Protein backbone atom coordinates (compact mmCIF):
# COMPACT_ATOMS: atom_id res chain seq x y z
CA UNK A 1 0.00 0.00 0.00
CA UNK A 2 1.50 3.28 -1.09
CA UNK A 3 1.32 6.15 1.34
CA UNK A 4 0.30 8.83 -1.15
CA UNK A 5 0.35 11.64 1.38
CA UNK A 6 3.99 10.83 2.01
CA UNK A 7 4.70 10.75 -1.73
CA UNK A 8 3.17 14.20 -2.16
CA UNK A 9 5.06 15.55 0.83
CA UNK A 10 8.34 14.09 -0.43
CA UNK A 11 7.67 15.66 -3.79
CA UNK A 12 7.39 19.00 -2.06
CA UNK A 13 10.73 18.41 -0.35
CA UNK A 14 12.45 17.39 -3.57
CA UNK A 15 10.84 20.25 -5.46
CA UNK A 16 11.96 22.76 -2.84
CA UNK A 17 15.55 21.60 -3.13
CA UNK A 18 15.50 21.74 -6.92
CA UNK A 19 13.86 25.16 -6.86
CA UNK A 20 16.55 26.67 -4.64
CA UNK A 21 19.23 25.09 -6.80
CA UNK A 22 17.67 26.05 -10.11
CA UNK A 23 16.81 29.72 -9.51
CA UNK A 24 20.41 30.84 -9.82
CA UNK A 25 21.01 28.65 -12.84
CA UNK A 26 17.98 29.83 -14.73
CA UNK A 27 18.65 33.52 -14.01
CA UNK A 28 22.33 33.40 -15.00
CA UNK A 29 21.48 31.26 -18.03
CA UNK A 30 18.92 33.82 -19.11
CA UNK A 31 21.24 36.77 -18.62
CA UNK A 32 24.60 35.46 -19.78
CA UNK A 33 23.03 33.22 -22.45
CA UNK A 34 24.97 30.07 -21.62
CA UNK A 35 24.41 27.17 -19.21
CA UNK A 36 26.88 27.35 -16.37
CA UNK A 37 27.85 23.77 -15.55
CA UNK A 38 30.01 25.03 -12.68
CA UNK A 39 26.73 25.77 -10.90
CA UNK A 40 27.09 22.21 -9.58
CA UNK A 41 30.34 23.16 -7.90
CA UNK A 42 28.82 26.28 -6.38
CA UNK A 43 26.43 23.89 -4.64
CA UNK A 44 29.26 21.62 -3.53
CA UNK A 45 31.25 24.60 -2.28
CA UNK A 46 28.24 25.77 -0.32
CA UNK A 47 27.79 22.33 1.23
CA UNK A 48 31.40 22.30 2.45
CA UNK A 49 31.33 25.85 3.74
CA UNK A 50 28.09 25.01 5.50
CA UNK A 51 29.70 21.92 7.01
CA UNK A 52 32.68 23.97 8.12
CA UNK A 53 30.57 26.62 9.80
CA UNK A 54 27.87 24.40 11.25
CA UNK A 55 29.94 21.39 12.27
CA UNK A 56 33.59 22.34 12.61
CA UNK A 57 32.89 25.74 14.13
CA UNK A 58 29.63 24.59 15.68
CA UNK A 59 27.68 27.74 14.86
CA UNK A 60 24.45 26.12 13.68
CA UNK A 61 22.51 25.89 10.45
CA UNK A 62 21.14 29.46 10.01
CA UNK A 63 24.56 31.06 10.24
CA UNK A 64 25.99 28.33 7.99
CA UNK A 65 23.40 29.16 5.35
CA UNK A 66 24.23 32.86 5.52
CA UNK A 67 28.01 32.45 5.40
CA UNK A 68 27.82 29.92 2.58
CA UNK A 69 25.49 32.23 0.64
CA UNK A 70 27.89 35.14 0.93
CA UNK A 71 31.12 33.26 0.20
CA UNK A 72 29.72 31.25 -2.69
CA UNK A 73 28.13 34.39 -4.09
CA UNK A 74 31.47 36.11 -4.01
CA UNK A 75 33.14 33.14 -5.69
CA UNK A 76 30.43 33.20 -8.34
CA UNK A 77 31.02 36.86 -9.14
CA UNK A 78 34.79 36.39 -9.20
CA UNK A 79 34.45 33.42 -11.56
CA UNK A 80 32.21 35.41 -13.83
CA UNK A 81 34.49 38.42 -13.85
CA UNK A 82 37.66 36.37 -14.14
CA UNK A 83 36.62 33.84 -16.76
CA UNK A 84 33.28 34.26 -18.45
CA UNK A 85 33.24 38.00 -18.92
CA UNK A 86 36.68 38.11 -20.61
CA UNK A 87 35.68 35.14 -22.75
CA UNK A 88 32.42 36.76 -23.79
CA UNK A 89 34.23 40.02 -24.54
CA UNK A 90 36.59 38.11 -26.83
CA UNK A 91 33.61 36.81 -28.72
CA UNK A 92 33.75 33.22 -27.50
CA UNK A 93 30.97 31.03 -28.85
CA UNK A 94 28.39 29.45 -26.57
CA UNK A 95 30.21 26.12 -26.90
CA UNK A 96 33.43 27.70 -25.63
CA UNK A 97 31.59 29.23 -22.69
CA UNK A 98 30.06 25.87 -21.80
CA UNK A 99 33.42 24.13 -21.96
CA UNK A 100 34.96 26.89 -19.86
CA UNK A 101 32.25 26.41 -17.24
CA UNK A 102 33.00 22.69 -17.12
CA UNK A 103 36.70 23.46 -16.77
CA UNK A 104 35.91 25.85 -13.93
CA UNK A 105 33.87 23.04 -12.39
CA UNK A 106 36.94 20.77 -12.48
CA UNK A 107 39.05 23.42 -10.79
CA UNK A 108 36.51 24.02 -8.03
CA UNK A 109 35.61 20.36 -7.51
CA UNK A 110 39.17 19.18 -7.21
CA UNK A 111 40.25 22.16 -5.12
CA UNK A 112 37.47 21.18 -2.75
CA UNK A 113 38.69 17.58 -2.96
CA UNK A 114 42.19 18.73 -2.11
CA UNK A 115 41.02 20.86 0.80
CA UNK A 116 38.60 18.40 2.41
CA UNK A 117 39.60 15.05 0.78
CA UNK A 118 37.11 12.90 -1.14
CA UNK A 119 35.84 11.07 1.94
CA UNK A 120 32.11 11.68 2.35
CA UNK A 121 31.19 13.89 5.29
CA UNK A 122 27.91 13.95 7.18
CA UNK A 123 26.17 16.62 9.16
CA UNK A 124 26.00 15.22 12.63
CA UNK A 125 23.06 17.34 13.71
CA UNK A 126 20.21 14.91 14.14
CA UNK A 127 17.04 16.12 12.56
CA UNK A 128 14.27 14.94 14.76
CA UNK A 129 11.83 12.86 12.78
CA UNK A 130 8.25 12.92 13.89
CA UNK A 131 4.91 11.68 12.67
CA UNK A 132 2.13 14.04 11.69
CA UNK A 133 -0.86 11.92 10.80
CA UNK A 134 0.25 9.59 8.03
CA UNK A 135 3.40 11.63 7.37
CA UNK A 136 6.92 11.07 8.53
CA UNK A 137 8.66 14.42 8.66
CA UNK A 138 12.12 15.55 9.68
CA UNK A 139 13.05 18.97 10.94
CA UNK A 140 15.46 19.43 8.04
CA UNK A 141 12.69 18.97 5.51
CA UNK A 142 10.59 21.60 7.22
CA UNK A 143 13.55 23.95 7.12
CA UNK A 144 13.99 23.18 3.43
CA UNK A 145 10.36 23.88 2.56
CA UNK A 146 10.47 27.03 4.65
CA UNK A 147 13.61 28.17 2.83
CA UNK A 148 12.00 27.56 -0.55
CA UNK A 149 8.94 29.55 0.50
CA UNK A 150 11.01 32.47 1.78
CA UNK A 151 13.09 32.35 -1.39
CA UNK A 152 10.03 32.40 -3.64
CA UNK A 153 8.52 35.38 -1.86
CA UNK A 154 11.82 37.24 -1.69
CA UNK A 155 12.60 36.65 -5.35
CA UNK A 156 9.09 37.68 -6.33
CA UNK A 157 9.47 40.90 -4.39
CA UNK A 158 12.95 41.48 -5.79
CA UNK A 159 12.01 40.89 -9.40
CA UNK A 160 8.74 42.79 -9.38
CA UNK A 161 9.18 45.64 -6.92
CA UNK A 162 12.82 46.65 -6.82
CA UNK A 163 14.91 48.59 -9.28
CA UNK A 164 17.54 45.88 -9.50
CA UNK A 165 14.90 43.20 -10.11
CA UNK A 166 13.40 45.18 -12.94
CA UNK A 167 16.90 45.73 -14.32
CA UNK A 168 17.52 41.97 -14.21
CA UNK A 169 14.33 41.29 -16.14
CA UNK A 170 15.06 44.03 -18.64
CA UNK A 171 18.65 42.90 -19.23
CA UNK A 172 17.52 39.32 -19.60
CA UNK A 173 14.88 40.01 -22.24
CA UNK A 174 16.72 42.66 -24.24
CA UNK A 175 20.31 43.51 -23.26
CA UNK A 176 20.82 46.18 -25.93
CA UNK A 177 17.67 48.05 -25.04
CA UNK A 178 18.51 47.80 -21.33
CA UNK A 179 21.95 49.22 -22.03
CA UNK A 180 20.44 52.02 -24.10
CA UNK A 181 18.05 52.85 -21.26
CA UNK A 182 20.96 53.48 -18.97
CA UNK A 183 21.02 50.18 -17.12
CA UNK A 184 24.50 49.08 -16.16
CA UNK A 185 24.10 45.60 -17.62
CA UNK A 186 27.49 44.39 -16.41
CA UNK A 187 26.59 45.26 -12.84
CA UNK A 188 23.20 43.58 -13.20
CA UNK A 189 24.94 40.42 -14.39
CA UNK A 190 27.35 40.48 -11.42
CA UNK A 191 24.52 40.87 -8.95
CA UNK A 192 22.64 38.02 -10.60
CA UNK A 193 25.68 35.77 -10.46
CA UNK A 194 26.12 36.67 -6.80
CA UNK A 195 22.53 35.75 -5.96
CA UNK A 196 22.62 32.68 -8.19
CA UNK A 197 25.80 31.22 -6.77
CA UNK A 198 24.69 32.08 -3.24
CA UNK A 199 21.39 30.25 -3.66
CA UNK A 200 23.24 27.30 -5.18
CA UNK A 201 25.25 27.15 -1.96
CA UNK A 202 22.05 27.08 0.09
CA UNK A 203 20.75 24.20 -2.01
CA UNK A 204 24.10 22.45 -1.56
CA UNK A 205 23.84 22.65 2.22
CA UNK A 206 20.35 21.17 2.24
CA UNK A 207 21.36 18.42 -0.15
CA UNK A 208 24.48 17.72 1.92
CA UNK A 209 22.52 17.64 5.16
CA UNK A 210 19.91 15.33 3.66
CA UNK A 211 22.38 12.86 2.14
CA UNK A 212 26.13 13.30 2.33
CA UNK A 213 28.78 15.81 1.38
CA UNK A 214 31.47 14.90 -1.09
CA UNK A 215 33.02 16.73 -4.04
CA UNK A 216 30.32 15.36 -6.37
CA UNK A 217 27.41 16.58 -4.22
CA UNK A 218 26.50 19.24 -6.75
CA UNK A 219 27.19 17.21 -9.85
CA UNK A 220 24.85 14.49 -8.53
CA UNK A 221 21.86 16.80 -8.88
CA UNK A 222 22.98 19.15 -11.66
CA UNK A 223 21.02 17.41 -14.40
CA UNK A 224 17.68 17.47 -12.53
CA UNK A 225 18.38 21.13 -11.88
CA UNK A 226 19.02 21.70 -15.56
CA UNK A 227 15.75 19.91 -16.19
CA UNK A 228 13.98 22.37 -13.88
CA UNK A 229 15.59 25.39 -15.53
CA UNK A 230 14.72 24.21 -19.02
CA UNK A 231 11.24 22.91 -18.26
CA UNK A 232 10.47 26.19 -16.56
CA UNK A 233 11.79 28.19 -19.47
CA UNK A 234 15.28 29.64 -19.26
CA UNK A 235 15.44 32.83 -17.27
CA UNK A 236 11.87 32.39 -16.08
CA UNK A 237 11.62 32.33 -12.29
CA UNK A 238 7.90 31.51 -12.09
CA UNK A 239 8.29 28.74 -14.63
CA UNK A 240 11.09 27.33 -12.48
CA UNK A 241 8.78 27.15 -9.45
CA UNK A 242 6.23 25.12 -11.38
CA UNK A 243 8.91 22.98 -13.02
CA UNK A 244 10.66 22.22 -9.72
CA UNK A 245 7.48 20.77 -8.25
CA UNK A 246 6.54 18.95 -11.44
CA UNK A 247 9.93 17.26 -11.47
CA UNK A 248 9.79 16.61 -7.74
CA UNK A 249 6.41 14.97 -8.21
CA UNK A 250 7.56 12.99 -11.24
CA UNK A 251 10.58 11.66 -9.36
CA UNK A 252 8.65 10.58 -6.30
CA UNK A 253 5.72 9.08 -8.20
CA UNK A 254 8.29 7.56 -10.52
CA UNK A 255 9.94 5.76 -7.62
CA UNK A 256 6.60 4.24 -6.68
CA UNK A 257 6.19 3.19 -10.30
CA UNK A 258 9.68 1.75 -10.48
CA UNK A 259 9.07 -0.36 -7.41
CA UNK A 260 5.73 -1.51 -8.80
CA UNK A 261 7.41 -2.49 -12.05
CA UNK A 262 10.20 -4.26 -10.21
CA UNK A 263 12.90 -2.00 -11.61
CA UNK A 264 15.88 -0.66 -9.73
CA UNK A 265 15.28 2.61 -7.87
CA UNK A 266 18.62 3.90 -9.13
CA UNK A 267 16.57 4.95 -12.14
CA UNK A 268 15.13 7.69 -9.97
CA UNK A 269 17.66 10.20 -11.28
CA UNK A 270 16.93 8.98 -14.79
CA UNK A 271 13.37 10.28 -14.54
CA UNK A 272 14.51 13.89 -14.46
CA UNK A 273 16.96 13.23 -17.32
CA UNK A 274 14.13 11.78 -19.35
CA UNK A 275 11.92 14.80 -18.68
CA UNK A 276 14.88 16.99 -19.63
CA UNK A 277 15.38 15.26 -22.96
CA UNK A 278 11.67 15.16 -23.78
CA UNK A 279 11.30 18.86 -22.95
CA UNK A 280 14.26 19.75 -25.14
CA UNK A 281 12.81 17.82 -28.04
CA UNK A 282 9.13 18.61 -27.74
CA UNK A 283 9.06 22.05 -26.20
CA UNK A 284 12.50 23.63 -25.84
CA UNK A 285 11.01 26.93 -24.66
CA UNK A 286 9.62 25.07 -21.65
CA UNK A 287 6.60 26.31 -19.76
CA UNK A 288 7.68 29.89 -20.38
CA UNK A 289 4.59 30.84 -22.36
CA UNK A 290 2.35 29.95 -19.44
CA UNK A 291 3.99 32.43 -17.13
CA UNK A 292 4.77 36.09 -17.13
CA UNK A 293 8.34 36.47 -18.24
CA UNK A 294 10.63 37.20 -15.34
Amino acid at each position, binding site marked *: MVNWAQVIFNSGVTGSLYLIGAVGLTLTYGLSKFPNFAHAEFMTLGAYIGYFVAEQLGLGLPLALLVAFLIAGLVGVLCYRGIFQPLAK*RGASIIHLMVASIALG*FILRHSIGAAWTWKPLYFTATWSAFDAGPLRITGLWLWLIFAALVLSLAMHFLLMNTKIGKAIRASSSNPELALASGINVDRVIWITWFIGAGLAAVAGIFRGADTQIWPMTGWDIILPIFAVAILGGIGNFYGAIAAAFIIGLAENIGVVGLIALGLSTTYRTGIAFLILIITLIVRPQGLAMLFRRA
Partner: protein
Amino acid sequence: MDPLLYVFDLIVFIGIFGIVSLSLNLEFGFAGLANFGKVAFFLIGAYTYALLSQIGLPFYLCLIAGGLISAIFGLLVSLPALRLRADYLAIAVLAFGEILRLIVKSEDWLAGGDWGITVSSAISLAGASHRVDALVNIALVYFCLFICFTVAQLLANSPYGRAMRAIREDEIAAETLGKSRAKFKAQALMLGSAMAGVAGGLYAQYLHCVLPGMFMPMITFTVWIMVLLGGPANNWGALLGAALVEIFDRGTNIVKDYFVLPIDPSNLQYILFGALIIFVLLYRPHGLLKESSIKTKALRLAYNGRRSIKNKRS
Protein backbone atom coordinates in the same frame (compact mmCIF):
# COMPACT_ATOMS: atom_id res chain seq x y z
CA MET B 1 56.93 -2.01 -13.21
CA ASP B 2 58.48 -2.71 -16.59
CA PRO B 3 59.24 0.75 -18.02
CA LEU B 4 58.94 -0.40 -21.63
CA LEU B 5 55.51 -1.83 -20.93
CA TYR B 6 54.55 1.49 -19.41
CA VAL B 7 55.52 3.27 -22.63
CA PHE B 8 53.61 0.72 -24.70
CA ASP B 9 50.59 1.21 -22.50
CA LEU B 10 50.81 4.97 -23.03
CA ILE B 11 51.04 4.45 -26.79
CA VAL B 12 47.92 2.29 -26.79
CA PHE B 13 46.00 4.90 -24.79
CA ILE B 14 47.10 7.67 -27.13
CA GLY B 15 45.87 5.57 -30.04
CA ILE B 16 42.46 4.80 -28.53
CA PHE B 17 41.83 8.34 -27.38
CA GLY B 18 43.26 9.61 -30.64
CA ILE B 19 40.34 7.90 -32.37
CA VAL B 20 37.81 9.43 -29.96
CA SER B 21 39.47 12.80 -30.32
CA LEU B 22 39.29 12.54 -34.13
CA SER B 23 35.61 11.69 -33.88
CA LEU B 24 34.87 14.69 -31.68
CA ASN B 25 36.92 16.86 -34.01
CA LEU B 26 34.70 15.72 -36.84
CA GLU B 27 31.58 16.69 -34.92
CA PHE B 28 32.78 19.82 -33.18
CA GLY B 29 35.67 21.00 -35.33
CA PHE B 30 34.12 20.52 -38.73
CA ALA B 31 30.39 20.41 -38.14
CA GLY B 32 30.24 22.67 -35.07
CA LEU B 33 28.19 20.24 -32.95
CA ALA B 34 28.61 20.39 -29.17
CA ASN B 35 28.63 16.70 -28.33
CA PHE B 36 28.86 16.65 -24.54
CA GLY B 37 27.92 13.00 -24.46
CA LYS B 38 30.84 11.50 -26.32
CA VAL B 39 31.25 8.94 -23.58
CA ALA B 40 27.79 7.52 -24.37
CA PHE B 41 28.94 6.31 -27.78
CA PHE B 42 32.22 5.11 -26.34
CA LEU B 43 30.16 3.11 -23.83
CA ILE B 44 27.91 1.65 -26.52
CA GLY B 45 30.94 0.46 -28.48
CA ALA B 46 32.58 -1.04 -25.41
CA TYR B 47 29.49 -2.87 -24.17
CA THR B 48 28.62 -4.11 -27.66
CA TYR B 49 32.12 -5.48 -27.96
CA ALA B 50 31.96 -7.09 -24.54
CA LEU B 51 28.57 -8.71 -25.05
CA LEU B 52 29.25 -9.95 -28.58
CA SER B 53 32.67 -11.33 -27.75
CA GLN B 54 31.04 -13.28 -24.92
CA ILE B 55 28.90 -15.18 -27.39
CA GLY B 56 32.04 -15.98 -29.31
CA LEU B 57 32.06 -13.64 -32.30
CA PRO B 58 35.52 -12.88 -33.70
CA PHE B 59 36.99 -9.57 -32.55
CA TYR B 60 36.80 -7.72 -35.86
CA LEU B 61 33.06 -8.39 -36.11
CA CYS B 62 32.63 -7.18 -32.54
CA LEU B 63 34.52 -3.99 -33.32
CA ILE B 64 32.53 -3.36 -36.49
CA ALA B 65 29.26 -4.13 -34.71
CA GLY B 66 30.23 -1.71 -31.93
CA GLY B 67 30.84 0.97 -34.52
CA LEU B 68 27.58 0.26 -36.33
CA ILE B 69 25.36 0.17 -33.26
CA SER B 70 27.02 3.31 -31.98
CA ALA B 71 26.37 4.95 -35.36
CA ILE B 72 22.71 3.95 -35.20
CA PHE B 73 22.43 5.54 -31.77
CA GLY B 74 24.23 8.60 -33.10
CA LEU B 75 21.63 8.87 -35.83
CA LEU B 76 18.75 8.35 -33.38
CA VAL B 77 20.12 11.03 -31.08
CA SER B 78 20.67 13.37 -33.99
CA LEU B 79 17.11 13.15 -35.29
CA PRO B 80 15.50 15.26 -32.58
CA ALA B 81 18.72 16.92 -31.47
CA LEU B 82 19.40 18.68 -34.75
CA ARG B 83 16.53 21.04 -34.22
CA LEU B 84 18.12 22.12 -30.96
CA ARG B 85 20.44 25.02 -30.27
CA ALA B 86 24.05 24.23 -29.39
CA ASP B 87 23.46 24.47 -25.65
CA TYR B 88 20.31 22.33 -25.70
CA LEU B 89 22.05 19.69 -27.79
CA ALA B 90 24.94 19.62 -25.31
CA ILE B 91 22.66 19.14 -22.30
CA ALA B 92 20.46 16.57 -24.05
CA VAL B 93 23.40 14.42 -25.11
CA LEU B 94 25.00 14.72 -21.68
CA ALA B 95 21.77 13.46 -20.14
CA PHE B 96 21.61 10.67 -22.72
CA GLY B 97 25.06 9.49 -21.63
CA GLU B 98 24.06 9.54 -17.97
CA ILE B 99 20.90 7.53 -18.72
CA LEU B 100 22.94 4.90 -20.55
CA ARG B 101 25.36 4.66 -17.66
CA LEU B 102 22.44 4.30 -15.25
CA ILE B 103 21.02 1.48 -17.35
CA VAL B 104 24.22 -0.56 -17.49
CA LYS B 105 24.71 0.13 -13.80
CA SER B 106 21.29 -1.07 -12.67
CA GLU B 107 20.61 -3.92 -15.08
CA ASP B 108 22.70 -6.69 -13.61
CA TRP B 109 21.57 -9.25 -16.16
CA LEU B 110 22.86 -7.17 -19.05
CA ALA B 111 26.52 -6.80 -18.23
CA GLY B 112 27.08 -7.45 -14.56
CA GLY B 113 25.79 -4.09 -13.30
CA ASP B 114 28.21 -2.24 -11.07
CA TRP B 115 30.82 -4.99 -11.17
CA GLY B 116 30.88 -5.20 -14.95
CA ILE B 117 32.06 -8.20 -16.92
CA THR B 118 35.45 -9.34 -18.09
CA VAL B 119 36.34 -9.13 -21.75
CA SER B 120 38.91 -11.32 -23.43
CA SER B 121 41.55 -9.54 -25.47
CA ALA B 122 41.04 -9.35 -29.22
CA ILE B 123 44.13 -11.22 -30.29
CA SER B 124 45.75 -13.49 -27.76
CA LEU B 125 48.87 -15.31 -28.86
CA ALA B 126 49.69 -18.48 -26.98
CA GLY B 127 52.51 -18.00 -24.51
CA ALA B 128 53.13 -14.39 -25.45
CA SER B 129 54.72 -12.10 -22.88
CA HIS B 130 53.08 -8.89 -21.73
CA ARG B 131 55.31 -6.90 -24.01
CA VAL B 132 54.29 -8.87 -27.08
CA ASP B 133 50.66 -8.54 -26.07
CA ALA B 134 51.08 -4.79 -25.81
CA LEU B 135 52.75 -4.68 -29.24
CA VAL B 136 49.87 -6.63 -30.76
CA ASN B 137 47.48 -4.14 -29.20
CA ILE B 138 49.48 -1.23 -30.56
CA ALA B 139 49.27 -2.73 -34.04
CA LEU B 140 45.52 -3.26 -33.77
CA VAL B 141 44.78 0.17 -32.31
CA TYR B 142 46.97 2.05 -34.75
CA PHE B 143 45.48 0.14 -37.67
CA CYS B 144 42.04 1.40 -36.61
CA LEU B 145 43.43 4.85 -35.95
CA PHE B 146 44.97 4.91 -39.41
CA ILE B 147 41.63 4.07 -41.04
CA CYS B 148 39.77 6.68 -39.00
CA PHE B 149 42.41 9.29 -39.69
CA THR B 150 42.35 8.60 -43.42
CA VAL B 151 38.57 8.87 -43.48
CA ALA B 152 38.65 12.10 -41.47
CA GLN B 153 41.39 13.57 -43.65
CA LEU B 154 39.64 12.67 -46.92
CA LEU B 155 36.44 14.09 -45.55
CA ALA B 156 38.05 17.33 -44.44
CA ASN B 157 39.42 18.02 -47.90
CA SER B 158 36.44 16.87 -49.92
CA PRO B 159 33.57 19.05 -51.12
CA TYR B 160 31.59 17.28 -48.41
CA GLY B 161 33.90 18.54 -45.69
CA ARG B 162 33.80 22.05 -47.11
CA ALA B 163 30.01 21.98 -47.02
CA MET B 164 30.25 20.89 -43.39
CA ARG B 165 32.51 23.81 -42.52
CA ALA B 166 30.16 26.14 -44.37
CA ILE B 167 27.27 24.93 -42.22
CA ARG B 168 29.37 25.42 -39.11
CA GLU B 169 30.13 29.01 -40.10
CA ASP B 170 26.67 30.03 -41.25
CA GLU B 171 23.81 27.58 -41.34
CA ILE B 172 21.41 29.80 -43.22
CA ALA B 173 23.91 30.82 -45.89
CA ALA B 174 24.82 27.17 -46.41
CA GLU B 175 21.18 26.22 -46.66
CA THR B 176 20.52 28.83 -49.33
CA LEU B 177 23.26 27.08 -51.34
CA GLY B 178 21.28 23.87 -51.09
CA LYS B 179 23.26 22.19 -48.31
CA SER B 180 20.82 20.56 -45.91
CA ARG B 181 22.14 21.24 -42.43
CA ALA B 182 20.08 18.47 -40.89
CA LYS B 183 21.54 15.89 -43.25
CA PHE B 184 25.12 16.99 -42.76
CA LYS B 185 24.84 17.23 -38.99
CA ALA B 186 23.17 13.82 -38.75
CA GLN B 187 25.90 12.28 -40.85
CA ALA B 188 28.63 13.96 -38.82
CA LEU B 189 27.12 12.61 -35.61
CA MET B 190 26.73 9.16 -37.14
CA LEU B 191 30.29 8.97 -38.39
CA GLY B 192 31.69 10.45 -35.19
CA SER B 193 29.70 7.98 -33.09
CA ALA B 194 30.88 5.07 -35.23
CA MET B 195 34.51 6.02 -34.61
CA ALA B 196 33.88 6.45 -30.90
CA GLY B 197 32.17 3.04 -30.88
CA VAL B 198 35.18 1.33 -32.43
CA ALA B 199 37.43 3.08 -29.93
CA GLY B 200 35.15 1.86 -27.13
CA GLY B 201 35.53 -1.72 -28.35
CA LEU B 202 39.30 -1.38 -28.44
CA TYR B 203 39.26 0.09 -24.95
CA ALA B 204 37.14 -2.75 -23.55
CA GLN B 205 39.34 -5.48 -24.99
CA TYR B 206 42.53 -3.71 -23.93
CA LEU B 207 41.43 -3.26 -20.32
CA HIS B 208 39.80 -6.73 -20.29
CA CYS B 209 36.64 -5.43 -18.67
CA VAL B 210 33.71 -3.07 -18.89
CA LEU B 211 32.20 -1.40 -15.86
CA PRO B 212 29.93 1.62 -15.53
CA GLY B 213 32.65 3.47 -13.61
CA MET B 214 34.81 3.52 -16.73
CA PHE B 215 32.33 5.74 -18.52
CA MET B 216 31.98 8.81 -16.36
CA PRO B 217 31.25 12.18 -18.02
CA MET B 218 34.87 12.95 -17.20
CA ILE B 219 35.92 10.97 -20.30
CA THR B 220 33.90 13.27 -22.52
CA PHE B 221 35.60 16.33 -21.15
CA THR B 222 39.06 14.83 -21.37
CA VAL B 223 38.39 14.37 -25.06
CA TRP B 224 37.16 17.95 -25.31
CA ILE B 225 40.43 19.10 -23.79
CA MET B 226 42.31 17.08 -26.41
CA VAL B 227 40.43 18.65 -29.31
CA LEU B 228 40.50 22.21 -27.98
CA LEU B 229 44.16 22.01 -27.06
CA GLY B 230 45.27 20.44 -30.32
CA GLY B 231 43.20 22.65 -32.53
CA PRO B 232 39.62 22.14 -33.68
CA ALA B 233 39.08 21.37 -37.37
CA ASN B 234 42.59 20.02 -37.70
CA ASN B 235 42.93 16.25 -37.61
CA TRP B 236 46.62 16.39 -36.77
CA GLY B 237 45.70 18.73 -33.94
CA ALA B 238 43.23 16.19 -32.56
CA LEU B 239 45.98 13.56 -32.49
CA LEU B 240 48.50 15.99 -30.99
CA GLY B 241 45.98 16.93 -28.31
CA ALA B 242 45.32 13.28 -27.48
CA ALA B 243 49.05 12.61 -27.18
CA LEU B 244 49.71 15.68 -25.04
CA VAL B 245 46.82 15.04 -22.66
CA GLU B 246 47.73 11.36 -22.20
CA ILE B 247 51.41 12.16 -21.65
CA PHE B 248 50.45 14.86 -19.16
CA ASP B 249 48.18 12.36 -17.42
CA ARG B 250 50.99 9.81 -17.10
CA GLY B 251 53.50 12.48 -16.20
CA THR B 252 51.52 13.61 -13.18
CA ASN B 253 51.12 9.96 -12.15
CA ILE B 254 54.90 9.51 -12.21
CA VAL B 255 55.45 12.75 -10.34
CA LYS B 256 53.12 11.40 -7.68
CA ASP B 257 55.55 8.54 -7.00
CA TYR B 258 58.69 10.63 -6.76
CA PHE B 259 57.71 13.92 -5.20
CA VAL B 260 55.83 14.77 -2.09
CA LEU B 261 53.44 17.55 -3.00
CA PRO B 262 51.40 19.53 -0.51
CA ILE B 263 48.33 18.73 -2.61
CA ASP B 264 47.10 15.35 -3.79
CA PRO B 265 48.40 14.99 -7.37
CA SER B 266 45.21 13.42 -8.72
CA ASN B 267 43.34 16.54 -7.64
CA LEU B 268 46.14 18.77 -8.86
CA GLN B 269 45.98 17.11 -12.25
CA TYR B 270 42.35 18.06 -12.80
CA ILE B 271 42.89 21.53 -11.44
CA LEU B 272 45.66 21.96 -13.99
CA PHE B 273 43.48 20.48 -16.74
CA GLY B 274 40.77 22.99 -15.92
CA ALA B 275 43.20 25.89 -15.79
CA LEU B 276 44.80 24.77 -19.03
CA ILE B 277 41.51 24.64 -20.90
CA ILE B 278 40.45 28.07 -19.67
CA PHE B 279 43.86 29.42 -20.64
CA VAL B 280 43.57 27.88 -24.12
CA LEU B 281 40.07 29.28 -24.57
CA LEU B 282 41.16 32.73 -23.49
CA TYR B 283 44.49 33.10 -25.22
CA ARG B 284 44.58 30.49 -27.95
CA PRO B 285 41.01 29.69 -28.98
CA HIS B 286 42.26 28.04 -32.16
CA GLY B 287 44.38 25.53 -30.29
CA LEU B 288 48.00 24.70 -30.92
CA LEU B 289 47.52 23.93 -34.60
CA LYS B 290 45.42 26.22 -36.74
CA GLU B 291 42.48 24.94 -38.74
CA SER B 292 43.99 23.01 -41.63
CA SER B 293 43.61 24.67 -44.98
CA ILE B 294 41.91 22.63 -47.64
CA LYS B 295 44.12 20.51 -49.82
CA THR B 296 42.68 19.33 -53.11
CA LYS B 297 44.19 18.27 -56.39
CA ALA B 298 42.80 21.31 -58.17
CA LEU B 299 44.32 23.69 -55.64
CA ARG B 300 47.69 21.97 -55.90
CA LEU B 301 47.60 22.14 -59.68
CA ALA B 302 46.68 25.78 -59.60
CA TYR B 303 49.49 26.52 -57.18
CA ASN B 304 52.11 24.51 -59.06
CA GLY B 305 50.99 25.95 -62.39
CA ARG B 306 51.41 29.48 -61.15
CA ARG B 307 54.85 28.67 -59.85
CA SER B 308 56.00 27.11 -63.11
CA ILE B 309 54.89 30.21 -64.99
CA LYS B 310 56.85 32.36 -62.56
CA ASN B 311 59.90 30.15 -63.10
CA LYS B 312 59.66 30.53 -66.86
CA ARG B 313 59.55 34.29 -66.63
CA SER B 314 62.65 34.57 -64.51
